[in-house]
């Protein structure tokens, strides 16, 4: 009886794991296969003939090209600002001893919890009240707001294990506060800052909720461009685009693993092997 129950449990356990993997992998494979479909319409799967026509169409489309350029410029600059400001804030809070520290931290992290649509709508009204009508400036405001908490959170997490005594030891050995910060704390927080910057960049690059409110007719991000195209017609250009996204994501993961290690995200745990 015990053996039967255990076998049943084992089967259920492994099927759930398999189901999970299948559900994560199959749609990606389908999108990749469809991007090479030679037919001019969305037909039954699998395609009968293959071509690169959707890639040609995607590369020739200036609409996507403009969106990609805007997204790259926006994500890079928003992440840069958020990383500098956010990493400093996390280090400052780590050393801070004043009361109300927890409240400031919660307030600075709150954009993670407030729905993006609410932030986008709010920034739109705020910008128009300030007389800012330029799309890029508005987008930058919204994107700094949503990328900042990622950098601050991961930097703070990487500092948890670092004792303040390292910094104090540097001070007592004669280092100036800024020098100790630059040569002791910052290198120790490095992986956290890098992981946070990567998370921030990806968040900004993929954002829809905030950007939909802040784009104008001339400045739109790539996801907004894709959404507009998807509602117009569901052709396979988007499948070709998806493959570009998948390739870029794999590259980011490999780089993240090399530079910070994927364990920076999950940690190793107390009983880590």
């Amino acid at each position, binding site marked *: 009886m*015990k053996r039967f*129950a255990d076998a*049943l*449990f*084992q089967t259920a*356990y492994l099927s*759930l*794991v398999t189901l*999970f*993997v299948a*559900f*994560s992998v*199959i*749609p990606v494979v389908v*999108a990749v296969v469809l991007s090479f479909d030679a037919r001019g319409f969305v*037909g039954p*799967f*699998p395609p009968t003939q293959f071509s690169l026509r959707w890639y040609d169409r995607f590369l020739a489309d200036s609409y996507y090209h403009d969106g990609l350029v805007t997204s790259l410029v926006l994500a890079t600059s928003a992440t840069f*600002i958020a990383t500098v*400001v*956010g990493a*400093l*804030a996390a280090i*400052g809070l*780590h050393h*801070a*001893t004043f009361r109300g520290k927890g409240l400031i931290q919660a307030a*600075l992290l709150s954009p993670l*919890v407030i*729905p*993006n*649509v*609410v932030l986008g*709508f*709010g*920034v*739109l*009204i*705020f910008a128009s*009240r300030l007389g800012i009508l330029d799309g890029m400036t508005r987008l930058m405001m919204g994107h700094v*707001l949503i990328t900042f908490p990622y950098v*601050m959170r991961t930097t703070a997490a990487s500092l948890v294990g670092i004792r303040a005594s390292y910094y104090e030891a540097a001070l007592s050995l004669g280092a100036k*506060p800024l020098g100790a910060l630059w040569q002791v704390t910052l290198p120790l927080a490095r992986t956290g800052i890098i992981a946070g910057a990567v998370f921030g960049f990806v968040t900004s690059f*993929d954002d*829809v*909720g905030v950007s*939909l*409110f802040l784009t104008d007719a001339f400045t739109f991000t790539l*996801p907004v461009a894709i959404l507009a195209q*998807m509602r117009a017609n569901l052709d396979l250009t988007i499948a070709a685009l*998806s493959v570009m996204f998948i390739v870029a*994501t794999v590259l*980011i*993961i490999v780089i993240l693993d090399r530079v910070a290690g994927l364990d920076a*995200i*999950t940690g*190793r*745990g*107390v009983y*880590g092997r």
Partner: protein
Amino acid sequence: MRRPSLSTALLWPALLVMVPLLLGPLLLLAHESLKPFVGGRIGGDESGALTLQNYAQIADPQYVRYFLDTFRVGLLATAFALVLGFPVAHFIVRRAGPTMRRLMVGGLVGTLFLSIIVRVYAIAMTFGPHGPLSDFSRLFGISASSPDGAELMVVLGLLNSTLPLVALTLIGTLQNINPRLEDAALSLGAPRWKTFFQITVAMSLPGILSAAIIAYAFCISNLVVPMLVGRGFIVFVSNLIYFRFSEVANFPSGAALSMVMMVISVALFYGLLSLVRSHWQEAGK
């Protein structure tokens, strides 16, 4: 001797950038939500007296339905994510070798990083009318073209994001549970399923609840998934807020909906999460 001056100096840039960016929009939204709406113009009436009518409107059954849809579908996606995500996190922490672990964690983070539009598009192509898994909805006795079919697609779309969120959170939980406790139960003769539920699951409860809250907060604020695969049958509150902005330009109503949604999300997240933490910290003493 600590230097409070330096730590505050490091905080200043963040406060200067983030406080206006956070408070400005939220205060203006709160103000906007109290303005009377006049048709035909963008933004509320500046001269009119402040009113609560935009909030009263939300209590209308017609509006409440959107909230209930949002909460119900979010709950479904969260429940499925827990059932599938827990075994996977357990597998990664306890059974996978180093290479397998790296591959699976990489896959989870990659899924989270991949543009949500791309993921929902891939799911629509896979489970849609021409997709290889188009018969999937029949397993549940649902016709793909019915409102229930749309709901199933929204659940699948949300699940694609909540699964990695839940699994990654639970990996953190499970690797802090001593594996020897499970070994002890097994060597004392407990069956595997009993060990799994009464030791592993029971000890992970705080982590499971945290993961559920994170996943649920993600679901109920989602915009893209219902927009792309809800086909108008499933409309979330986020979509409603966007309609208020893009289609009818009723800013006061959109602002009132935003305020309600924000209060719900913040209360859910900080309230429930701190409740979970304090409860288990006390129990641990």
